[in-house]
């Protein structure tokens, strides 16, 4: 009798582990697909950002982004006119901004808000979740996977994130962001799925700050993957050039 019970327990434990281990590659593939579409390698794109402040004011930016990969990204502000010529550069954990009005380069931080809106620099410049978060499948519904990402490094911008992914096409639908206390900081809604050559991705992201109620929107205006971007574009000394 005891042997039978022990056998059942061992079989139960083995099957649980095998299920868990079978689940991981699938989650990894889903997230890799999302990352590759949100920030493909060697891409150049033009994006529009709109920030709504709680006092009702709206600020709008048009930005050209050139990315080698998630760790190597260059931004150039095209609009508004008062920001034209401002640049940002990301190399791994380091981010710098070039201020054209004084011709200076200043180091800034990953967690700082992007262009004064509710997107953080990490949301825009760095989408490498697989390297920074552990993944768990929270729930699988008829149409969606709900995946939890828990920070595995101190460099991660958020302690926890929750993703809603469309099973039909692997597109992100919704994303929650949490801090280390479990506070729900922001919600990002995705929409307007479009193809940009070989890349299919949501062309519209709306980020709502759950603490302040402020909202920011990002639209992908154009995206070209597989571009030949020289290394010199990502040189610190080449900012402002």
């Amino acid at each position, binding site marked *: 009798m005891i042997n039978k019970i022990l056998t059942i327990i061992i079989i139960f434990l083995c099957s649980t582990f095998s299920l868990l281990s079978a689940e991981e590659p699938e989650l990894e593939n889903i997230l890799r697909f999302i990352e590759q579409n949100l920030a493909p390698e060697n891409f150049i794109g033009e994006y529009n950002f709109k920030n*709504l402040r709680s006092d009702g004011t709206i600020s709008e930016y048009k930005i050209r982004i050139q990315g080698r990969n998630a760790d190597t990204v260059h931004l150039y502000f095209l609009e508004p006119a008062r920001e034209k010529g401002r640049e940002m550069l990301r190399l791994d954990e380091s981010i710098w901004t070039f201020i054209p009005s004084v011709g200076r380069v200043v180091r800034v931080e990953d967690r*700082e808000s992007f262009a004064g809106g509710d997107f953080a620099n990490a949301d825009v410049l760095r989408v490498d979740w697989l390297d920074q978060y552990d993944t768990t499948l*929270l729930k699988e519904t008829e149409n969606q996977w709900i995946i939890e990402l828990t920070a595995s490094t101190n460099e991660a911008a958020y302690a926890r994130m929750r993703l*809603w992914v469309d099973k039909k096409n692997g597109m992100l639908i919704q994303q929650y962001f949490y801090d280390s206390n479990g506070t729900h900081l922001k919600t990002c809604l995705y929409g307007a799925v*479009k193809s940009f050559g070989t890349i299919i991705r949501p062309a519209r992201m709306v980020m709502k700050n759950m603490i302040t109620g402020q909202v920011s929107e990002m639209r992908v205006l154009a995206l070209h993957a597989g571009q030949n971007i020289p*290394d010199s574009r990502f040189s610190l*000394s080449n900012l402002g050039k």
Partner: protein
Amino acid sequence: MNWQLKSLFITILFSCLQIIGAQEQSKSSDTEDLEEADLLDDMEDPFNTDSDKETVSEIPDNQESTAQEGSEYKEPIIQFRGNTSAQFSFIPQSDSNSRDTGRGTATLNLVMQAKPWSLLRLFCDITGKYKLSADSENALNTGFEIVCNQVGLSLRPVDQLNITLGKERRIFAPGLFVYPSEFIMIEGNLPGLENQLLGIWLLRCSYETPWLTIDTMLLPFTRVDEYGLPDLEAFNPDEIGVAGRLLWVLNGIDIGITIGYLDTTLKAGCSFSTYIVSRLELHGELGYTLEDEHLLDIALNYLLESGASALLIASLQSLQSDFQQREHVLSALLGLRWQIIDEIMISLEGYYNGNGLTAHEFEVFSAFPSIDVVSQGFFNVPNSSNIFIRRVFVIGQANFQEIYDLFNIQLTAIIGLEDGACLGLVRSEWLASSHSTLSITIMGFYNPPEGQYFMRPYDWQLTGAWKISF
């Protein structure tokens, strides 16, 4: 044995239940958020905060394509930006016998960059200024000047190699307004005043990679004329400078090392900048000059250039014996930048100005009978290089970004620790539109008895500016 196996079984079962229970608890802590989400409707207005309900939209079957497969992004050959601004400063006079004065400047700044071929870049940055000032006798003075800030061409025969010929401005030093490590582009900018954008004439050959840049520079023309062009009449081959610079990003630390021969002396500088913890940046700079130009020498040069009387020049020269030779001059700066929240940032720096006046020198200098004549003009437009007269300073700045509506506020203080003299700036900026920025800056000096700002050109000034960018 059976009893032991039973105990083991119960223990394992209990542990498994505990683990499963804990997992369920964390997973179901907000189970209401585990329902299917709706895709954002393309037409939905996210800025309508009254409506929290999202409508469902279908993913279109015929997805719109905005780029052809393998298409190449074409960067514009010519990129252009510029701004025009009008600035007026009101300068009240504390002396009841003098009239208040004012100064107005209309500025047009144009920046152009062209890349006709991938290996060639042409660049140009020019400022035109129309100046209007009313002096204490109510006389109007006007003047027009056009200045070349930057101009030149840049070749990139291979990706890592860059050769630039022309006039260029590039500052990598991390200090707020004063850069002890930067001896090539020395001029910083105080907030709210006319920005100093002047570059330096050079031939630069650089090896550039994302993490490391090595520059070698030939600096042939350190003297420029009123247009910012090389002053060929004053050209002296002995004043040709050379410099080498290394910029290295090592384990998240920006390291800059510069060494060179400029202004007929050896100079060197090094700097670093890094985030020590989240939102807290630490930076430092160290500068070395073998033989530095003394403040007294600068004042003498000013008098010579402005055509002062020989008697005045001779009497000022007589002070030279009381002043130390400026050899092996070391200056240092250490600072912190704390981003408290996204909208508020505080910077604090300690600055040791190795070229500043000692207590004895300051006493002699301030007792000079015609010091007001010396200071007139020389200290008329304070910028970052001529406000540090003594040696030890604390520099503080608080930035409030879009603190209300599209208003930015910046508070700046420079305090001399040896005498308590202080320069304060309050700047408020309104981002009125995507093109237009309005700002008001109040700059004031506090000078205790025997303070270094006894030479201040005014107690305070109010400056209003309207800038239109395009």
